[in-house]
């Protein structure tokens, strides 16, 4: 019933020359998304993937279980010295992420271009 979560990884370089690993999600982010969210993150090389940008542009539905997966990722990233950013959230989920405090540990951008310019 839940739309399968897909994820893929892109490597990008910011205008200022920093390497950014972009994790692009598609579908629902819910309790069934553990492999696509945490698994995809955990497969990244921790030594080189220091800046991680989450792309939610193609995500329509995120529930509290999905938010918990994002928080688990933030915990692991914090422990590994990685910084996590995100873009592409709807206005509603931007509000929800702000309400639960995620924005304290993952800065949100409105677009990929805005994020890349800032990183």
């Amino acid at each position, binding site marked *: 019933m839940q739309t399968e979560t897909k994820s893929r990884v892109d490597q990008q370089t910011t205008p200022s020359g920093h390497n950014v690993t972009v994790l692009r999600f598609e579908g629902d982010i819910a309790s069934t998304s553990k492999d696509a969210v945490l698994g995809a993150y955990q497969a990244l090389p921790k030594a080189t993937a220091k800046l991680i940008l989450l792309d939610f542009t193609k995500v329509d539905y995120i529930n509290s279980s999905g938010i918990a997966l994002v*928080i688990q990722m933030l*915990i692991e990233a914090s422990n590994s010295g990685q910084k996590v950013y995100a873009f592409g959230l709807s206005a509603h989920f931007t509000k929800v992420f702000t*309400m639960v405090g995620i924005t304290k540990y993952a800065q949100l951008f409105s677009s990929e271009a805005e994020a890349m310019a800032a990183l």
Partner: protein
Amino acid sequence: MNPPKAISVEVRLPSRLGFEKVAMSTASAVAKLMGFREDRVEDLKTAVAEACINAIEHGNRLNEKLSVGVVLSAGEDELEVKVIDDGKGMKSQPSKPDIDRKMHGEEDPRGMGMFLIQALVDEAEWVAGTNGKSSYVRLVIKLDKESE
């Protein structure tokens, strides 16, 4: 097209995760018919989804022999949603998640559903059913006439 006063819509969901989206879609359709702004419809969708997830997971404990009832009652200026399960009801009131405690492993990363419900609607109450069954959460979202 405005729905008549106090119109009621009922949906019965299987206790399987994912089916909360059926209730979300129904609540969204009713709220749009009533004239709610798009941002309030989104608030309602998330609140209804979280209420159904709690009913499926905690109330009915994923027992597919049990169903979750969703009753939407559209009044003149508010929409009430009751999500009913066969559990004993919530023992505690929602608390605001503490992201710092979560980040430091002092609080479970999960457990934000009740908080989101309460934060996104105008009224939320959890009612334990008699004999430990038919517990429900009641949500109310009000039409903001000044900005409609």
